[in-house]
């Protein structure tokens, strides 16, 4: 039986394959050879075969039949075997399969091996992939090694303990005694891993956190030594001594100082020192500054220090290195709520980042910009954000448009609303990346900008002539045409106004189009109905509405039936509509998974009004928006006061009764004036 081919030989051979099929053939041939070698329990070449299997596994081929062989290698006395065996275990074994538990005993033995490199292999494997059961069984061994004077093992044991704690948090207590003098170590490896272990413990347990607070002075001292000490070739990175350790210490200090005045005060000086003295020309210095800033912002630092931190971030924003700009924006986003004014000072730089080429930077700059909008800067910010909205990538448009709406709602004054509506409309018309839930917001915005109504309905109508596929656009357009159709045909617009029949053609087109969603159809039908009070072609509208009275779409049917009723029962009002009566139709829908039964809508109005509630279409609101309940309310308002209404909804949902109360105060002025 010839010796199995060497690993490197196999790699060389496989790389000569010119097609996937050729490679697969080679792999299959080799796997077959390896399998028979395994079957023969060949000890000499097991290691070589498993190594080859690991290579093939990396290429994407199955290698599970090598799992037990890895265990055999681990149990071998040869170091080479153990090395490959543990590597194989880490690559092939899965903690979800029981097979991995067979490792436990071997690892236990190896943790007590006389050779530290074998102990190291065991610690590494346990710390990388140990399951909860293994961790429970072996925690004692790890704890022992955490107390050894051998720093090579001690540092590994510390990280292994971190893994054990993550897997079995209840075991954390048992490691407490061993942490006693971890920070007294001179060895940087041990110091680093100890700080990681202490961090893990403090993050998981408030008691541990309180217990370890006393370490703050020691941590501060260690950090100080790192900064003040001269050049140490062993730990130097671009002139900075052990940046990895510095960053971890800063992170632990953050956790320890978080809600504690005394600790925060004790670390104040060192933070200021690091913040001002760290070399910023290379990434490594900036990494430390970044961590320092995060710590300053999170603990109870004095205001001078906080301003220093924000200014560092401000400088980061101007850095040529885009990675630095990225972390600056991320950090500023975290602090913008608590240190709003300080961050505002960097607003113009942040806004400049909207023009950055990098997508991640743009997104963060956008989020931060929205967070910075306030009553004072809205005009300028809106200009920038609308420009961004116009020119940004599709993936941003929806979020940006929503942000613009929200900002306009919150801070927009009347004079600005027009600006917003114009620009947002431009975007919506250009590509309609507006999210569906923005439709009501946009309608509200349009309603409020009275002087824009004619312009808005004209532009939206024109857009509909070109394209009826973008649903949010179509819905807003339909609503506007229904509401302001009279402005559309009356010649108030600069361009040639359409005639009534043309407008009705468009709306009817929406009703029949395959592109329209049911929601859109609802909007279109309602719009047509509304036009019956604005247009003269009432008969045509009547005909359309009655056709949809037998529509398959239940929602449309319901609406049509209601509207038909309005035609029949209230036609006498049409000729002489009582200007004091407002007719309101409510539509109730239910997006939850269970239907609402015994649904009752009640309303109360101030004394000067009179209310008449007609019967509802049903008292069951189907689940998942599969239909609505409509009800017509007539409100008599002889004194022409602003309409306010208190509403009460009662229904049964999933077996329990529900009651909901609300006040409705934002009826559009046209409804009561």
């Amino acid at each position, binding site marked *: 039986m010839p010796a199995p081919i060497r*690993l*490197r030989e196999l*790699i060389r051979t496989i*790389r000569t394959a010119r097609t996937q099929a050729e490679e697969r053939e080679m792999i299959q041939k080799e796997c077959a050879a390896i399998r028979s070698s395994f079957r023969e329990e060949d000890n000499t070449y097991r290691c070589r075969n498993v*190594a080859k299997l*690991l290579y093939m596994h*990396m*290429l994407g081929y199955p290698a599970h039949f090598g799992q037990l062989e890895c265990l055999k290698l681990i149990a071998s006395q*040869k*170091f*080479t*075997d153990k*090395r490959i065996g543990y*590597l194989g275990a880490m690559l092939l074994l*899965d*903690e*979800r399969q029981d097979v991995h538990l067979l490792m436990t005993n071997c690892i236990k033995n190896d943790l007590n091996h*006389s*050779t530290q*490199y*074998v102990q*190291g292999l065991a*610690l*590494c494997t346990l*710390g*990388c*992939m140990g399951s909860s059961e293994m961790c429970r069984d072996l925690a004692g061994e790890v704890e022992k090694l955490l107390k050894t004077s051998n*720093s090579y093992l001690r*540092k590994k044991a510390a*990280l*292994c303990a971190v893994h054990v704690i993550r897997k079995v948090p209840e075991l954390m207590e048992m490691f407490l005694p061993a942490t006693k003098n971890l920070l007294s170590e001179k*060895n*940087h*490896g041990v110091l*680093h*891993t100890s700080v990681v272990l202490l961090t893990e413990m403090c993050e998981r347990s408030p008691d541990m956190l309180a217990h370890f607070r006393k370490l703050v002075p020691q941590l501060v001292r260690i950090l100080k030594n790192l900064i003040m000490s001269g050049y140490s070739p*062993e*730990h130097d*990175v671009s002139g900075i001594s052990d*940046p*990895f*350790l510095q960053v971890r210490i800063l*992170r632990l200090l953050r956790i320890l100082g978080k809600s504690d005045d005394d600790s925060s005060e004790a670390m104040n000086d060192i933070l200021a020192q690091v913040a001002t003295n760290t070399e910023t020309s290379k*990434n*490594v210095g*900036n*990494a430390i500054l*970044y*961590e320092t800033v995060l710590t300053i912002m999170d603990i109870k630092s004095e205001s001078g220090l906080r301003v220093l931190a924000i200014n560092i971030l401000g400088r980061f924003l101007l850095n040529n290195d*885009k*990675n*630095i*700009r*990225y*972390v600056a924006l991320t950090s500023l986003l975290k602090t913008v709520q608590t240190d709003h004014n300080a961050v505002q000072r960097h607003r113009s730089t942040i806004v400049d980042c909207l023009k950055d*080429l*990098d*997508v*991640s*930077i743009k997104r963060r700059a956008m989020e931060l910009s929205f967070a910075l909008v306030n009553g004072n800067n809205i005009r300028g910010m809106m200009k920038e954000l609308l420009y961004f909205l116009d020119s940004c990538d599709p993936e941003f448009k929806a979020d940006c448009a929503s942000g613009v709406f929200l900002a306009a709602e919150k801070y927009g004054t009347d004079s600005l609303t027009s600006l917003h509506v114009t620009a947002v409309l431009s975007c919506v018309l250009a590509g309609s990346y507006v999210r569906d839930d923005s439709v009501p917001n946009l309608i509200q915005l349009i309603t409020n900008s009275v002087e824009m109504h004619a312009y808005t309905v004209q532009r939206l109508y024109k857009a509909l002539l070109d394209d009826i596929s973008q649903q949010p656009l179509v819905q807003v357009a339909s609503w506007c045409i229904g509401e302001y159709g009279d402005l559309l045909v009356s010649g108030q617009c600069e361009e040639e106004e359409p005639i009534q029949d043309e407008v009705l053609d468009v709306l009817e087109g929406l009703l029949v189009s395959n592109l329209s969603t049911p929601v859109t159809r609802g909007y279109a039908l309602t719009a047509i109905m509304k036009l019956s009070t604005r247009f003269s072609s009432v008969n045509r509208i009547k005909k359309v509405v009655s056709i949809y009275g037998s529509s398959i779409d239940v929602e449309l049917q319901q609406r049509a039936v209601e509207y038909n009723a309005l035609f029949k029962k209230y036609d006498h009002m049409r000729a002489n509509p009582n200007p004091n009566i407002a007719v309101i139709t409510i539509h109730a829908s239910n997006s939850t998974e269970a239907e609402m039964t015994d649904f009752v809508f009640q309303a109360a109005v101030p004394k000067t009004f009179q209310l008449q509630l007609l019967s509802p279409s049903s008292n069951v609101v189907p689940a998942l928006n599969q239909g609505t309940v409509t009800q017509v309310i007539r409100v008599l308002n002889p004194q022409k006061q602003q309409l306010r209404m208190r509403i009460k909804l009662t229904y049964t949902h999933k077996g329990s009764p529900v009651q909901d109360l609300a006040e409705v105060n934002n009826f559009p002025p046209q409804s009561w004036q």
Partner: protein
Amino acid sequence: MQFMLLFSRQGKLRLQKWYVPLSDKEKKKITRELVQTVLARKPKMCSFLEWRDLKIVYKRYASLYFCCAIEDQDNELITLEIIHRYVELLDKYFGSVCELDIIFNFEKAYFILDEFLLGGEAQETSKKNVLKAIEQADLLQEVSNTGLHPESFVNPSCV
């Protein structure tokens, strides 16, 4: 760190180190999608991206991409330094490392990584110490291959 992947510009995987338990299928899926995402990045873009709910830090050295997935609280900039340190270790060990070294000696690349990181965190911040440990372990491997019983190998002083 949750995992580290090394892959070529053609998307071939050269090393995968996972610090979180996932099935082979999940690992393959993540690898495929992430490799695609990173390879689609333009050279001028920054080294960080958000992917699913992870922070990804990646850097290209010659023909190899080094890609790490870190947690929310982890420092992206220092992760770049971690990647750089690993590259330096490989460079020192192989003597001016190139992708072929990693391909033909992948097990050694793993051994070096396992002396530098443990459970996703740095266990040794001194370049010298990591290399010394690897050197000693390699020696031990030589000894064990030539038949000498490993127990007769005397422990060196703590490194």
